[in-house]
């Protein structure tokens, strides 16, 4: 090892200023935009109070970018656009251009390079997802693989914008659900309590923290084979996996019993109704790499039913609120079971205490 020079103190600059990387048209018209329109899927045209315009071309990628891909995206931005980009929170890259006549050549170049133009307005945009087996320390599945497999099948809906309203899909690799709420969410659901390696617990885990982490107080300290360890009341355990991150010897992931569940109706926007949480609709779906066909089939079924049945501007939650949950299960053919009836805190608010019943 080379003799280190004095360690360099960090410059605690925090969040960089976005204005320095902003298209000059956007800097000039900051706060002065008048309206926008969707000239075609994947393209936005914004017009300012001063009559200036900025064009945006939205592009789907593989999210985990290698340096070759990132440089290719930069090359396209330099050759066909103005060198200004941003990323949406669903990891689409947006090219911003001042000259509308450059839009079509950019789209052609982007598509020729293997990227996908779309994701605007009433499309199924890119699935926002978590790290999975590539990098996470607690994953039950590989969201990147699930998403790649699913986007292969949803690509036409990404490229079009003819859904009733926008569709945001998310995936999560464990029940912490970093992927967040979505119109449709595909999340890991463990179905068996953790398997504990009692030889390791005392050395690896801070036991009181692990006990405190359990949402249902199912974990208690115990002596196992003469060693301090932890035990789980398997009757109480809800198999959430919250104990696994602070205590890796409490393995929750199981090749067979870690399943996927599908949830619908999560909506972050305040438009029409207040923001909503997603609700369970399907579970017991095999965690089936490398292509997870069973999960994709259910998602496509839900999307098809929604597209056929929902009215303009209805997000999935709006649509189901109008037609009712019985109709949702009937139209999609998904089974409704005892597991769909909530029993977590506040569950009573989800019960039908009325005679409002559709026949």
């Amino acid at each position: 090892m080379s003799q280190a020079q004095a360690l360099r103190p960090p410059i605690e600059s925090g969040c960089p200023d976005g204005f320095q990387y902003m298209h000059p048209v956007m800097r000039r018209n900051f706060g002065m935009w008048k309206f926008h329109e969707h000239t075609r899927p994947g393209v936005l045209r914004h017009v300012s109070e001063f009559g200036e315009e900025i064009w945006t071309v939205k592009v789907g990628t593989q999210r985990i970018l290698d340096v070759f891909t990132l440089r290719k995206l930069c090359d396209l931005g330099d050759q066909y656009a103005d060198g200004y980009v941003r990323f949406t929170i669903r990891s689409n890259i947006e090219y911003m251009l001042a000259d509308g006549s450059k839009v079509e050549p950019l789209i052609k170049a982007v598509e020729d390079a293997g990227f996908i133009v779309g994701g605007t307005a009433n499309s199924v945009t890119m699935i926002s997802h978590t790290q999975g087996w590539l990098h996470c320390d607690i994953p039950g599945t590989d969201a990147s693989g699930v998403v790649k497999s699913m986007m292969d099948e949803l690509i036409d809906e990404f490229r079009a914008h003819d859904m009733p309203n926008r569709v945001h899909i998310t995936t999560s690799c464990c029940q912490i659900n970093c992927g967040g709420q979505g119109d449709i969410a595909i999340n890991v659901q463990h179905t068996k309590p953790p398997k504990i390696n009692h030889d390791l617990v005392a050395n690896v885990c801070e036991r009181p923290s692990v006990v405190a982490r359990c949402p249902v107080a199912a974990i208690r300290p115990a002596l196992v084979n003469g060693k301090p360890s932890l035990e789980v009341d398997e009757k109480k355990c809800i198999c959430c996996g919250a104990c696994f991150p602070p205590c890796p010897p409490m393995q929750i992931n199981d090749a067979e019993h870690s399943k996927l569940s599908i949830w619908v109706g999560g909506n972050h926007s305040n438009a029409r109704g207040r923001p909503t949480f997603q609700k369970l609709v399907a579970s017991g779906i095999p965690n089936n790499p490398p292509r997870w066909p069973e999960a994709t089939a259910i998602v496509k079924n839900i999307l098809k039913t929604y597209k056929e049945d929902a009215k303009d501007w209805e997000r999935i939650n709006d649509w189901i609120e109008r037609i009712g949950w019985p109709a949702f299960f009937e139209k999609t053919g998904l089974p409704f079971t005892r597991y769909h009836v909530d029993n977590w805190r506040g569950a009573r608010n989800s019960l039908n205490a009325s005679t409002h019943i559709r026949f």
Partner: protein
Amino acid sequence: MANNHHSTPMLDELENGPWPSFISGIKRLRDQHSDGRIQGMANDLLGQLEHSYETRKGYWKGGTVSVFGYGSGIIPRFSEVAKSFPESKEFHTVRVQPPAGNFYTTAILRQLTDSWEKYGSGLITFHGQTGNAMFIGVNTENTQAFFDEINEYGFDLGGAGPCVRTGMSCVGAARCEQSCTNEQRVHRTLMNRFTDDVHRPSLPYKFKFKVSGCPNDCVNAIERSDFAVIGTWRDEIKVDQAEVKAFIAKKGRDYVIDNVTTRCPTGCMTLNADDTLDIDNKNCVRCMHCLNVMNKALSPGDDKGVSILVGGKRTLKIGDLMGTVIVPFFKLDTDQDYKDLVTLAETIIEFWAENGLEHERCGEMIERIGLANFLEGIGIEPDPNMVIHPRQSSYVRMDGFEDAAEQFYRRKMEEKQAAAG
């Protein structure tokens, strides 16, 4: 060249199909990159990932890695199967705070790419779910050097662990007609006040700021942040009646009735016989639906500010929580307004730091102690905008009610006097 590539039959399946493949990208690093270090890392990463696909298990464990002077920002990853895949045995992620609004030039992206290529795996994600630029895959030795290089040209680490986390803001006023605030300024004012709390984890758990310029909440602030700042307005929606007529001429009256007026959650809109639109603005809840549908004809008002909601979070531990309205309307124009916003955030974080349990999010603490106690703790008076409806249960001790009511009247009188000057 002797082919010592790991066989990856399952991952190879993910190279099929029309969507761009991350597996093809990692293979490009393995096969086409000029640096043997990156080739080897990519090869062993693919090997370990294939092993995960075969066994349906992850093989990364955490640890302790950071850069000099900081206690967070690096996500350490050590392989549990390093013997089989030694060249990617240390594969840490560097979390880097993006510019507010996720704006980049291709030039700065290239500069970051060049730096990363010198030290890391060559894999980058824009962005992780918290909002960081994720530089995925660097060994312990190179972590400091990579950080030093990008820190010199203006990039800093994000948070990890029990600390203030990297913030997020929407595209906002830079390109959106619905924007009601300066997202750039709100984002950077808040984040850069708490830089110390980003880099040195010492809070009960994570704390996230997110800024959306309007109630469409495109960065999911209400549900995904502890402190959500949402642009709004309190005067009247601006109606361009000529554009209303143009819209009706194009789409028809039925479309407006079916998709605009009857979708209004408070029924505050009337489509008149002469194709003009009336809005009962006192009953508008700023949901944004009509503005989204008729974005040329309708615009937010001029008296803009923000609503602040506190306590949103995802599932762990007590279940998902939406943020709760703490300040219905916060004017954000002057330097003093921004100082007051920072003071509010400081007060909330300080109260939570003192009263939150270990690993308890701010929203969970509010759930535990009750909103009224939280409000008292941060010195904010209760407001009916904070609830959907008042209490339903009579099982509560109320011997302080008369005093509270008297204080309410006194406060209202003082407000009136202050307004009168």
